[in-house]
């Protein structure tokens, strides 16, 4: 259940996608998202999906694992699909009971589902193939120009890397506490929604306490090592563009252009 959240979880590997510079990956996935949101063309969207699946394939992350990230948003997808199918204006297609299904509605539903799928797959692929450290490094570098207008870029990046770093830790902790309370007879699966929510109190209270304890420990550790923000800090691993990045960007841009062609033609 908890283990299904793949966002922010690194899947170790040695593929081209893993080796590519985080900046390249971030920009490319952002571009993909922009295109997916701008286009209304079904063919473009399908191409985008095919392209993201190919990218997953190239990363050697099992497809089922990459798609796990879709599980939590499945309800949202279903919801929008149902809403779109039954409550859109347009040419009536057929009628079930009192609800009229329109041609436009079905099309819109398919488009929305495709969009969300590409969105989640694309962004999970970035986090699955990039270690949290590199990811925030990349984000920090990309946001660097904002420092000129006094945006605390380094601090934001630091907060992100701490958050990302602690996702697996807290997840493991959650699982441990769930196990311990289950062993004491706690039951998380039966009852109505309120009973279920209440049954999580024995998990949430210890989890919060441990999160605060960890935060406190981390703050002490950082302070005792004289951490004082980004000023004059150097990195152990400098980000450098390599040939792989050229190739990856090239392939990606080609893919993006391919996606846009149907949009211009029709």
């Amino acid at each position, binding site marked *: 259940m908890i283990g299904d959240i793949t966002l922010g979880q690194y899947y170790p590997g040695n593929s081209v996608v893993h080796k590519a510079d985080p900046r390249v990956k971030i920009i490319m996935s952002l571009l993909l998202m922009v295109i997916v949101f701008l286009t209304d063309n079904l063919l473009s969207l399908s191409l985008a999906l095919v392209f993201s699946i190919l990218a997953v394939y190239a990363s050697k992350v099992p497809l089922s694992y990459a798609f796990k990230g879709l599980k939590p948003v499945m309800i949202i997808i279903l919801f929008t699909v149902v809403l779109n199918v039954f409550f859109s204006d347009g040419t009536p297609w057929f009628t079930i009971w009192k609800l009229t299904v329109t041609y436009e509605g079905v099309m819109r539903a398919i488009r929305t589902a495709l969009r969300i799928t590409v969105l989640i797959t694309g962004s999970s692929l970035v986090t699955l193939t990039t270690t949290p450290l590199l990811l925030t490094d990349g984000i920090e570098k990309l946001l660097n120009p904002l420092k000129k207008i006094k945006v605390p870029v380094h601090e934001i990046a630091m907060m992100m890397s701490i958050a990302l770093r602690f996702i697996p830790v807290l997840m493991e902790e959650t699982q441990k506490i769930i196990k*311990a309370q*289950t*062993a*004491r*007879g706690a*039951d998380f699966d039966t009852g109505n929604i309120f009973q279920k929510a209440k049954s999580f109190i*024995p998990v949430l209270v*210890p989890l919060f306490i*441990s999160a605060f304890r960890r935060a406190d420990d981390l703050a002490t550790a950082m302070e005792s090592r004289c951490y004082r923000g980004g000023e004059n800090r150097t990195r152990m691993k400098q980000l450098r563009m390599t040939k792989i990045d050229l190739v990856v960007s090239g392939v990606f841009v080609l893919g993006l252009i391919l996606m846009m062609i149907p949009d211009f033609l029709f």
Partner: protein
Amino acid sequence: MAIEINNLSHIYNKETVMEKTAVHDITLTIQDGEKVGIIGHTGSGKSTLVQHLNGLLKPHSGSVTVNGIDTKSKEIKELRKIVGMVFQYPEHQLFEETVYKDIAFGLKKQYEFTQEEMDVRIRAAALAMSISDELMEKSPFELSGGQKRRVAIAGVLVTDPRILVLDEPTAGLDPRGRDELFQSLEEINRTKNTTIIIVSHSMEEVAGFANRILVMNKGTVAMDTTPDKAFEDVDLLESMGLSAPQVTYMARAISGVIKDFPTRIHTVEAMVKELMKVVKHP
């Protein structure tokens, strides 16, 4: 009425690159009332093995049967009543407003007793763990580390499990807390014939408490014997990242000087006894 483990294997993250066989083809039987110590290097699969006993983990192959209940069957609630499990750092599972309520949690979840019956059991569990009455209405978060640990263990004991599993229960306890814990466990085993399975790093602890020792190595049971036999082959133990109790090494050293001095000594008490013999009749 026993624990039967047949060809048990467990694999974490099956079919991914992180795949890890944590327990491999283990077969063993544990009888009622036994005091079993499980020792092994970190990562040898001790925790994975014991979490199969109450169905928290399910076998990927093989089977685990406790008092005739297969852990894969639907009678999981019944199973959890029989097997009490104390995890490593159990104090991290405390959550209620008062110590009393926290101990009561498992009892409320697993049984339907009247208020009076519950009260009797809660106080009995508290007594078994030497938790004094004035602590009962305090918040569990105000207590010291050792007190928290005892409260958490009482929260498992309260349902009166026939089998009690403790995963490294003494980690981070001071010597006195450790001794008290073992005394309590000894008492529970003696008065109720409760099976006690204890996972530990410390050879001293296990040698003094268990009457059977399972040595785990790389997901398998490398030895299944009495403390006497287990600590005989020190080289084998050391090759698995373990050691014998310190007094055992001492006994060996002495036997090099004093002829006929026994080498099968694993507890300080036994050592004292043997040394006294030597001192009295030189």
